[in-house]
């Protein structure tokens, strides 16, 4: 029997079994006071406020932990209950600062609410009250304060840190009157393992944990986070044309209300005084403020003389779909070239190249919320909890539900805490590791023969190539013990549904496309693709990198991945845009800089990028930029690259414009204008349209971002049915060909989107990374990301709190290697490669294995990409930023 008949306070109710008395009462509008309950958390029953009486049961029952049963007659009030609640409440008040008017939570306080209902006996309370020494507030965290004096020991913060975040920075410490919520060693929060996500702050029922520098907003508007590709839904609080708060949208399927430190606190760059507010033109080597007319006229005049192959555009993965559409239309229709690219070239180009060949589509095959129901999650080459923290939470949730986690990463990343198996392969040996796993699958007959037969092709060719990968060779090359390879292969192949996650660790190699193909081989071999909670999931790094690719900011495809070289596609766009189009593929990101250096490309139009820090072999980029005749930078801040510009055009940030971002699970979501733009900053699409109009371009007369989306609908089949009115609340996942289509939750169900509908296996061989360590440069440098920063940190380092949590680059190096060079922890060293030298402090840690060191590229003081090598994957043209050879030298201080 699913339902139960119960009675609460004389009201008959028919309710679902399995829920607790408190849940049922709350759902039916019956108030039972409670302090330690939170709907996101497992009930702990420690506050003793939700006591009720049930006929036939002895004494008082805790409503939050007791499931309803048929025939229960429940009373939420009686004289005895009232007395117990009062006394318990008085004991809490006895230890609680009575300073409500001075409290952040005044009027929103759960203790006030319960006290108003339960009441206290002042006389008795006064006799209980004790003079407790005031504990100093913990102000160490830049984003929030912990005031022990207001803590009511409900444990919600402790349970949140455990159940929601999996970080476990907090627990109860000490005993009796001395009990406090404590970190390990009772040190300040900033010195603990706390990740500053603020989930505890949001849930604290009283004013014990409260945000700093946050004002009460006068209104809230929902928009999308601008950091990674997950696309968390956030209600931004606005007051006096400033962003003052951020709160996760609890109804969002993407983040379920949760946010990471960047999402919750990282919006503050929007209000930063260094925002660009006026167009700037370089006159006599100095930037001078000019009005828009002058700047646009100059840009148009210069661009007019460098049309066709003298021109290149670098678009942006940070700006909305509409802006990307307009920018690629401008490049193709007005400038007559397909040479437009963006930083997806440096992150997921091999994913698109590889997965299009094997599956027919280069996007995540599943939705984010499907991870929680996977039985095995295999994360390879992804520092998920740092780069995609909310997907990290989905993985941790899956783990709590019993899923097995396999992590393949050269370093012992944070996610390894949750891993059942950690495969610590040497950087650049992923093909060998994956092929080794496939060898095990085939040798032990664990493959999904039916899936292979029905849905895939080229299997026999692929099988032959497996011979090269016997496990002893695999162990030798990857350094992963073969037992672990076997164990991982068995788990992935048998404990289904299995979901595979990957990111830059797979793609940023000179054989990046092979890595991706190896992944698609493994998924097809085990039948782990095209199903719910089972697939191949590249995690996109930037908020709209998926959208920038979708909308054709790529040199070989028009919007919707329609090939530039296909005559019928060209004809279609020529007809729609009423202009003759170039039939040849354009140049890629890396090729653009080569051609600039060779003098072929004279003018560069760059929107929202910072290649001086983000491009491999950055010194090469700087040299190239110096050679340009005319360089236009369109951005929100004066970046390291902007220095090289002739004209700088100030653009609006995500908070000042309407549009859409497409997240990593192909969900197109609405970005909304929250505040007015600073100074004269303008929307990117407006700026590009103005340039286009001055160059005689037709079809650039849009009034709103929605006008542009309407045009996108008509020329982009996968976006055909994505209308603003449909995505007002919840975004739609492409493919969504028409207005009645519900969107696509997971790809390749029943049939792959490849031509012919079948998935394709690819035979592979091992190709070593281009630059391996040798005597002179004995260490492998690999690159990573920090939780607290994003990309080249143009935004995140302008958020004071993020900067204070991670303010400098650190070279992660294994104690063994450090010992060889007699290095001390925290001392400055020089790191040299064949291309450049940087100076950086050491962090001696076993996170890195012997022979491998790691840097991020967030800090302009330590431009890591001056070290990396621009060895290029022949298919996707991505540079090999994950492996190069370096040496570390001690600085002689004498």
């Amino acid at each position: 029997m699913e339902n139960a008949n119960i009675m609460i306070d004389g009201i008959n109710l028919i309710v679902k079994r399995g829920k607790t008395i408190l849940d049922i009462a709350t759902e039916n509008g019956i108030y039972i006071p409670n302090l330690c309950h939170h709907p996101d958390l497992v009930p702990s029953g420690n506050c003793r406020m939700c006591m009720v009486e049930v006929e036939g049961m002895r004494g008082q029952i805790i409503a939050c932990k007791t499931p309803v049963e048929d025939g229960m007659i429940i009373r939420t009030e009686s004289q005895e209950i009232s007395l117990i609640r009062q006394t318990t409440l008085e004991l809490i008040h006895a230890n609680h600062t009575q300073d409500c008017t001075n409290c952040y939570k005044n009027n929103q306080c759960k203790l006030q609410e319960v006290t108003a209902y339960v009441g206290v006996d002042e006389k008795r309370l006064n006799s209980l009250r004790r003079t407790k020494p005031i504990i100093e507030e913990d102000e160490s965290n830049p984003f929030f304060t912990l005031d022990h004096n207001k803590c009511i020991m409900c444990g919600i913060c402790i349970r949140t840190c455990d159940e929601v975040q999996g970080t476990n920075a907090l627990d109860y410490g000490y005993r009796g009157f001395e009990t406090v919520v404590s970190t390990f060693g009772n040190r300040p929060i900033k010195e603990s393992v706390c990740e500053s996500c603020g989930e505890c702050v949001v849930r604290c029922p009283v004013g014990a944990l409260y945000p700093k520098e946050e004002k009460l907003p006068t209104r809230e508007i929902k928009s999308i986070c601008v950091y990674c590709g997950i696309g968390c839904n956030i209600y931004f609080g606005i007051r006096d044309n400033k962003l003052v708060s951020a709160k996760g949208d609890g109804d969002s399927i993407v983040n379920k209300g949760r946010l990471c430190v960047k999402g919750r606190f990282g919006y503050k760059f929007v209000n930063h005084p260094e925002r660009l507010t006026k167009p700037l033109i370089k006159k006599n080597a100095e930037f001078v403020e000019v009005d828009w007319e002058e700047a646009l006229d100059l840009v148009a005049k210069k661009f007019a003389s460098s049309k066709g192959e003298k021109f290149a555009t670098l678009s942006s993965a940070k700006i909305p779909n509409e802006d990307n559409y307009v920018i690629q239309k401008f490049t193709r229709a007005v400038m007559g070239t397909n040479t437009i690219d963006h930083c997806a070239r440096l992150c997921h180009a091999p994913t698109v190249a590889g997965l299009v060949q094997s599956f027919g589509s280069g996007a995540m095959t599943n939705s984010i919320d499907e991870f929680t129901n996977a039985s095995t999650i295999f994360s390879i080459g992804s520092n998920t909890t740092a780069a995609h923290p909310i997907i990290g939470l989905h993985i941790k949730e899956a783990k709590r539900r019993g899923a097995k986690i396999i992590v393949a990463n050269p370093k012992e990343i944070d996610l390894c805490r949750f891993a059942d198996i950690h495969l610590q392969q040497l950087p650049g040996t992923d093909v060998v590791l994956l092929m080794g796993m496939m060898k095990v699958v085939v040798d032990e007959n664990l493959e999904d023969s039916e899936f292979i037969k029905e849905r895939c092709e080229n299997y026999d060719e692929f099988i032959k190539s497996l011979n090269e990968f016997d496990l002893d060779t695999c162990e030798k090359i990857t350094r992963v013990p073969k037992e672990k390879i076997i164990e991982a292969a068995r788990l992935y192949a048998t404990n289904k549904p299995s979901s595979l996650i990957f990111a830059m660790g797979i793609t940023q190699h000179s054989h990046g496309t092979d890595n991706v193909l190896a992944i698609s081989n493994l998924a097809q071999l085990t039948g782990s693709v095209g199903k719910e909670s089972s697939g191949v999931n590249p995690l996109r790094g930037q908020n709209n990198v998926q959208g920038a690719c979708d909308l054709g900011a790529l040199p070989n495809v028009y919007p919707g991945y329609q090939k530039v070289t296909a005559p019928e596609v060209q004809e279609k766009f020529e007809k729609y845009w009423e202009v003759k189009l170039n039939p040849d593929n354009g140049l890629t990101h890396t090729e653009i800089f080569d051609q600039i250096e060779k003098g072929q490309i004279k003018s560069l139009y760059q929107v929202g990028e910072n290649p001086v820090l983000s491009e491999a072999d950055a010194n090469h980029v700087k040299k190239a930029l110096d050679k340009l005749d005319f360089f236009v930078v369109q951005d929100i801040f004066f970046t390291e690259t902007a220095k090289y510009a002739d004209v700088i055009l100030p653009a609006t940030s995500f908070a000042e414009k309407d549009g859409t971002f497409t997240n990593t699970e192909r969900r197109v979501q609405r970005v909304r204008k929250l505040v007015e733009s600073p100074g004269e900053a303008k929307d990117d699409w407006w700026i590009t349209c103005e340039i286009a109009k001055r160059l005689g371009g037709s079809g650039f007369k849009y009034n709103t971002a929605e006008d542009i989306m309407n045009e996108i609908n008509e020329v982009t089949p996968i976006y055909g049915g994505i209308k603003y009115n449909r995505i007002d609340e919840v975004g739609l996942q492409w493919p969504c060909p028409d207005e009645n289509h519900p969107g696509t939750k997971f790809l390749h169900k029943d049939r792959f989107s490849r031509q012919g509908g079948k998935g394709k296996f690819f035979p592979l061989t091992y190709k070593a990374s281009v630059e391996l360590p040798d005597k002179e440069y004995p260490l492998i440098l690999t690159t990573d990301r920090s939780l607290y920063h994003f990309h080249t940190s143009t935004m995140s380092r302008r958020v004071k709190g993020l900067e204070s949590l991670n303010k400098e680059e650190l070279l992660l190096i294994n104690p063994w290697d450090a010992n060889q060079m007699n290095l001390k922890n925290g001392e400055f060293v020089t790191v040299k490669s064949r291309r450049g030298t940087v100076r950086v402090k050491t962090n001696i840690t076993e996170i890195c294995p012997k022979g491998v060191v790691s840097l991020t590229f967030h800090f302009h003081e330590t431009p890591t990409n001056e070290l990396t090598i621009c060895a290029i994957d022949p298919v996707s043209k991505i540079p090999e930023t994950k492996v190069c050879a370096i040496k570390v030298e001690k600085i002689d201080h004498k």
Partner: protein
Amino acid sequence: MERSEILKQFEPANENMLNILHALQNNNSQNYLSEEDLKIAANYLNTTYSHIYGVATYYTMFSLKPRGKYIIRVCNSPVCYMENSTKVIEKIKEFLSIEVGETTDDKRFTLELSECLGRCGKAPGMMINEDVIGNLDTVDFKSIFDNYN
């Protein structure tokens, strides 16, 4: 003994946490649980650092500060109190020149208070490590402490 040797004597199960902490504390030359001890125990038991810290701070028999070779635990329960344990504590404090909770400069003794030791017939009483000593109102502390080097 190496910490790993100690851990090997126990199954990595939560119910062994207190025994493990005791064993690590006894093994520590300074008679306390260092942060390293706690971290190693937490890793072994697959629990979190904050949790094991909570457990270690809850129980008074664990110390998170370095202590002397010998722990003096003077009983401070009602019976000993009525038999003038306060005076005894004062005398020991004076004799060793330390306050309750402190350690002598030569790292020999740490003075602590304790709940009832079950030797009320010989009140006031104390323990020095495993030895119980009663009738403290009559003893000569010098001769007692000289036995512990």
